């Protein structure tokens, strides 16, 4: 009997952790102090404005129009990065492709984030049987060979559009963030401030979204940043396989897809190497920012 009492008391003790002040300002400080991360952030801002800015003046249709007189041109003053097998300008495709890859990466990250946050919050906040059931569903989704399932859905969806592509990606990528949010919400709901809200007459929904959610903001920002990098990679991978964007909407992966042709891979580096380098730098930069933010949330690893 005694030990049982002690156990209940002890777990309550552990949950009473002291909170650190405003996470966002710490994050910002850490970001500025970490030169690599700061450089990455500036690079990302520049490339985003550049890509979205320039693509205002580029016509996607013009770039993807086949020009049979200019097939596989090496880089020249007219075609800065040469042309592909359809005589299409690689540089233009690179700009539009980066824009498209970034857009879908951000879109999928936001959608998976939205679903994952709500799902994880509900599961962790209510706990108990609800949590148990919801987490079994997450377990199942986590275990699916999601790459194949996404490809199958992309292949069989009747009217395939960019929206349906991002919805399919979202449907199989929301679980990671849901799990993270859930385990943090499980801790938060035991804290006195959440309990206090109950006694003050706030409804469960209100507590979840106005009391607990703000306390998860650091975790959400970090996770979404790292997810963005992963989603850019996954989208380009799917486009590379031919199950992402259609060819009329180039993405960075589409350009890499041309390298599936051994001739292109071996002899026409200008078609695929710039896209490969760009994906790599994009993902590295986003991850650098994400890792710096992550360090900011963990006081032990903070540099400043």
């Amino acid at each position, binding site marked *: 009997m005694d030990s049982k009492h002690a156990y209940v008391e002890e777990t309550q003790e552990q949950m009473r952790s002291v909170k650190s002040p405003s996470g966002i300002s710490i994050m910002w400080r850490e970001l500025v102090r970490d030169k690599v991360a700061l450089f990455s952030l500036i690079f990302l801002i520049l490339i985003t404005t550049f890509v979205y800015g320039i693509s205002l003046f580029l016509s996607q249709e013009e770039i993807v129009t086949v020009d049979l007189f200019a097939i596989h041109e090496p880089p020249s003053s007219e075609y800065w990065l040469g042309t592909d097998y359809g005589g299409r300008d690689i540089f233009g495709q690179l700009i539009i492709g980066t824009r498209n890859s970034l857009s879908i990466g951000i879109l999928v990250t936001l959608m998976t984030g939205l679903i994952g946050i709500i799902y994880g919050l509900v599961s962790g906040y209510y706990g108990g049987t609800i949590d148990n059931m919801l987490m079994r569903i997450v377990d199942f989704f986590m275990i699916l060979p999601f790459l194949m399932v996404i490809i199958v859905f992309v292949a069989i969806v009747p009217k395939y559009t960019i929206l349906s592509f991002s919805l399919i990606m979202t449907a199989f990528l929301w679980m990671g963030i849901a799990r993270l949010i859930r385990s943090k919400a499980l801790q938060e709901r035991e804290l006195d401030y959440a309990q206090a809200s109950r006694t003050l007459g706030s409804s469960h929904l209100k507590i979840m979204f106005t009391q607990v959610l703000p306390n998860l903001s650091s975790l959400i920002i970090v996770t979404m940043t790292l997810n963005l990098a992963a989603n850019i990679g996954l989208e*380009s991978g799917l486009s590379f396989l031919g199950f992402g964007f259609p060819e009329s909407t180039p993405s960075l992966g589409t350009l890499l897809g041309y390298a599936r042709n051994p001739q292109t891979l071996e002899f026409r580096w200008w078609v695929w190497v710039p896209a490969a380098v760009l994906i790599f730098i994009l993902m590295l930069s986003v991850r650098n920012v994400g890792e710096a933010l992550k360090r900011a949330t963990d006081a032990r690893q903070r540099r400043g």
Partner: protein
Amino acid sequence: MWKFIVRRLFITAPQIVLLSVLVFLMAQMMPGDALSGLIDPNIDPQAIEQQREKLGLNNPWYVQYKDWVVSALQGDLGQSFRFKMPVTDLVEQRLINTFWLSLATLIITYLIAIPLGITSGRFNDTLRDQIITGYTYIGFATPLFIFALVMLWLFGFHFQWFPTSGSVAPGSEAGSLSYVISKLHHLLLPAISMALITTVNTVQYLRSEIIDTKQKDFIITARAKGASESRVYNRHILRNSLLPIAAFFGYEITGLIGGTVFVEFIYSYPGMGLLFMDSILQRDYSVVTSVVLLFGIASILGALLSDIILSLIDPRIRIK
């Protein structure tokens, strides 16, 4: 202990059922059915209709699902219309190839991860650690397919050290030494490409695990007792940090499956991943369904295995 295993099995069974339902529904959504592959288009539509009735394709979906499960359990996964042969026969050879590729990848993954992780964790914040951490940073940021492409370009085409497609040199006789060597030769580059990328997870896990363990009281005690540094690492820290990693291989299966799709596709390595890609491009859907089902079951069983091993190692997991 056995309680945990039984409880875990109670989770596994519905997962497999759910997976089969999902795969079945996917198959239903795919255009065409078992007959579109078999029958000559010149045959009279009435005959096809009769055939459909006979095969039970007009039955309600749950009856069809039951039939499908029963025949799948008997090893009948349908017919591939492209290869005009039973899917089961088609899959067999591919499965073996993928098995070897995955095994080689896993071995190389651990061969890289363990020394790097240990060095990095033991000498953290030294130059060596910074180099290794830098590698994991880059590894995390590199999509597997780009890395595999670069490796193929560099070592396959440019230096020509490795073959650029297939799983064995044509004409080599099965069972002979040269056959085995040729197999290994074909296997090595894809496996290394995959391992170099997937290993960064394990390196990072091992590193932080060792750094955490280093500061635990029982290690400080061991040092205070006068245990030598190498003894502290070999007997105390590694035993605690390595076991969970060894148990993770089951979870790795889900990741490996995604990896094999890319790597086999890029290296034209005739395994399940390439079979999947070829079949979906050719709309050979009965093969697609079977591959997804088999891979799904593989990752469910992999996770089951890892959970059980982990619970043997770490009793705390059993309580959740």
